[in-house]
């Protein structure tokens, strides 16, 4: 146990090149300033990459798995693992460095983060590159790197079972990659429980570049807390706030899938490659339809009273077991975005993407772009290797998914992402290549939702729908994702006070709302410093032209389009309010000093 309550004060550090395994002490100051999860992961990333331009796929780039101070304790919804690394998909418009890219973070639920803490660590850092495909087994203090050649090319659902059969103990919690990551698709994901993913920003691609198929972890310990009685009292209140919550009950019913119909009605859905905000057939792929025809079981992450994950079964041509979905993101990106309204077909696409280990959002976005380019005659069937990629075509979508994961034919090009595709195709297609900094936008459309546009352009990992629509939200979310607790239950306002009390009782530091946000602001600014050092400037915080030119032609928000001037002045205000230079976006020295980042900032 470390001197800092709520933590072990040690990170498991594994170098796959040398096979060296060490338990690295974490300075108490870092725990205090960066907490855990996304924040502490960013600090470790910053410390490891001392110069800009390091190739994300080089052995140097650390792949960091981070629980937070809530993880391993029975705090409601404290199931998250934040995967932090340097992005394999983003890049600035101009930079002095060939391999410049942003930070990347991707957050997943399940049971992995808590298990890391049961095993006695505040996080796992992987560096180096194994000679052959390998996997890591962590059983409390015992850590081994094992040969994983026999698992080469194995899809994630089969692997989820195979690895546990190999280990002979179902209590191991595992994360792993599929064929897409082994093939280094820049937007490959990391899977957990065959249906949960750290999907965004190429975390899987980085894992693939290290020849690391999986990590399995099992532990028997538990971190201590600063104030035992205070913790128990706050836990009681936190449970009370959520168990009685009507909001929590509603999430148990449909999870995020409720928004598939809701956002379509509001005109904020991604439809037809972001051309529209409303999908006339949304009800066919929405939560009510899924509850009626697909879902057989509600699934929750560790100690979560929400249970927003749904698994089920479909019948017919595309029939099969569904580990998760439709959720809002998956259902929209592969559904309304591609004009697919056949529920079993949609779920077949979602299941296949997880099975191959691709990011659902980027994959759906890329296929939507190709459908539009094909529809407009900018590319022909020959370009698509004979695939008739028309709107709503399930078989063509499935064929394209396989091609991307295998990087075969047109798939090799599509695997590079929507921006690279548009550069290759040209003919004005950049206008509807829907990305920021090279990362594809998600399922929230923005012609009628300017604040979400701000989230997409200013987020640290490229177009991120979760970053937050304003400064306060961004700071809170950066902090939330550093604690190990899920962001979803925090929609319940009654949770806030007990959540802060829990964090205070665990760490022994007094957290109020202001301190919580201030810590998040420090984390967000550290990410910005990293990106700025790589060469990202204001010109990189840019939306594609579509959002300023193509007004919605249907739905309740018909006619909605963003105004370029208004958007630009909103951004100028944003940088000013952040204490950053509005011209360059460089964080100002006053702000950095206020956040205790001046020592770090001197490096740039």
């Amino acid at each position, binding site marked *: 146990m470390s001197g800092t309550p709520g933590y072990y004060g040690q990170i498991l550090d594994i170098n796959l090149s040398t096979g060296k395994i060490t338990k690295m002490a974490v300075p108490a100051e870092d725990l205090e300033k960066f907490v855990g999860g996304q924040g502490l992961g960013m600090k470790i990333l910053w410390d490891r990459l001392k110069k800009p331009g390091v190739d994300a796929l080089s052995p140097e780039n650390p792949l960091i798995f981070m629980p937070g101070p809530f993880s391993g304790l029975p705090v409601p919804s404290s199931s998250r693992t934040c995967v932090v690394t340097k992005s394999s998909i983003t890049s600035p418009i101009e930079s002095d460095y060939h391999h410049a890219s942003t930070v990347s973070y991707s957050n997943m639920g399940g049971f992995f983060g808590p298990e890391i803490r049961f095993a006695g660590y505040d996080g796992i850092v992987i560096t180096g590159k194994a000679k052959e495909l390998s996997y890591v087994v962590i059983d409390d203090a015992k850590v081994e790197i094992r040969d994983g050649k026999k698992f080469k090319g194995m899809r994630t659902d089969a692997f989820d*079972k195979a690895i546990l059969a190999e280990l*002979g103990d179902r209590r191991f919690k595992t994360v792993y990659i599929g064929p897409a990551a082994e093939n280094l698709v820049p937007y490959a994901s990391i899977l957990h429980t065959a249906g949960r993913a750290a999907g965004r920003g190429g975390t899987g691609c980085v894992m693939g570049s290290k020849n690391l198929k999986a990590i399995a972890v099992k532990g028997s310990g538990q971190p201590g807390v600063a104030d035992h009685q205070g*913790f128990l009292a706050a836990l009681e209140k936190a*449970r009370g706030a959520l168990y009685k919550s009507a909001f929590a009950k509603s999430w148990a019913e449909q999870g995020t899938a409720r928004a598939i119909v809701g956002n379509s009605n509001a005109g904020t859905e991604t439809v037809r490659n972001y051309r529209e905000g409303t999908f006339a057939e949304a009800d066919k792929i929405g939560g009510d339809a899924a509850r009626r025809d697909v879902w*057989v*079981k509600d*699934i*929750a992450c560790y100690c979560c009273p929400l*249970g927003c994950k749904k698994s089920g079964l479909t019948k017919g041509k595309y029939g099969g077991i569904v580990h998760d979905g439709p959720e809002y993101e998956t259902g929209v990106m592969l559904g309304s975005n591609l004009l697919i309204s056949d529920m079993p077909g949609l779920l077949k696409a979602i299941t296949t993407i997880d099975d191959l280990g691709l990011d659902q959002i980027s994959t759906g976005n890329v296929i939507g772009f190709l459908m539009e380019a094909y529809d407009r005659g900018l590319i022909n069937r020959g370009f698509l290797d004979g695939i008739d990629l028309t709107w709503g075509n399930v078989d063509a979508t499935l064929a394209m998914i396989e091609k991307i994961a295998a990087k075969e034919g047109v798939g090799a090009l599509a695997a590079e992402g929507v921006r690279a595709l548009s550069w290759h195709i040209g003919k004005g297609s950049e206008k509807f290549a829907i990305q920021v900094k090279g990362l594809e936008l998600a399922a929230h459309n923005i012609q009628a939702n300017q604040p979400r546009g701000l989230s997409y352009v200013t987020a640290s990992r490229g177009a991120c729908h979760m970053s937050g629509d304003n400064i306060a939200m961004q700071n809170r979310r950066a902090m939330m994702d550093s604690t190990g607790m899920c962001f979803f239950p925090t929609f319940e306002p009654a949770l806030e006070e007990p959540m802060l009390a829990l964090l205070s009782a665990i760490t022994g530091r007094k957290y109020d709302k202001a301190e919580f946000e201030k810590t998040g602001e420090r984390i967000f600014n550290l990410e910005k410093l990293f990106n700025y050092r790589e060469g990202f400037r204001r010109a990189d915080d840019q939306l594609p032209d579509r959002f300023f030119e193509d007004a919605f032609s249907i739905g309740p928000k018909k006619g909605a389009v963003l105004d370029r001037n208004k958007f630009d002045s909103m951004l100028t205000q944003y940088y000013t309010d952040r204490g950053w230079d509005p011209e360059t976006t460089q964080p100002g020295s006053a702000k950095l000093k206020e956040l205790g980042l001046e020592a770090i900032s001197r490096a740039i």
Partner: protein
Amino acid sequence: MEREKKEPGKPDGGTTLTRREFLRDMGVAGGAVVLAGHFGVHGLAWAISGEPELKMVLVDYGKCTGCRTCEAACSSRNRPASVNGRELPGLGNPRFANIRVHRFNPDVDVPSVCAMCADTPCVKACPVKPDKKSGRRALYRDQATHTIHNDPARCLGCRSCAKACATQRTGVITPDSATGKPERMCTLCGGDPQCVRRCPFGALSYVEVRRDRKFYGQRAEKIAAELAKTWYGTVDLGGVK
């Protein structure tokens, strides 16, 4: 507690009142109606079935989401912490829970907990000679709580109880890896099982033991296989033990 009469010659302290005794008592009490009034309808059903009235934690597998809050709640209660000399509920390390949620692929979650077997195969398997005074082996059913206890001072660590539980019932009894002594026997938390109280999804209930319930006393793997077949049309759970 009138039904707790010690049955002579039964060192496990388990089944206490037999059908024969019931019929005898019925004669004394003047009929089934009086007896039912005295013992309750369930008591009567028990008496007729010839099984002792025992209570257990029952799982509704359709409602269980696999969140493992039950594990934390159990551990918190049954593995208390000593803080500044005071005994307080623990932090809920699931490793020390007596209930364990088994997760499968496809998504089936099976909380496994002591079935409170009336015939106690675990106790019967205990090779320790019954104590002359108490009639207890090392493993025994407690008279007051009806739960299974182990006397670590007399326990040999031979794992016979765990083997009996695994081959005949749920397999929840787990020998400590170092000592071999049995763990994970449900305590019922003094009549207020915390897993039941804390389950966010209402998947657990505190009920009378009934052997005729579906899945009663079965191993998690067997239950999961049947649920997977019903829900997903598959029996392939990856062959993991």
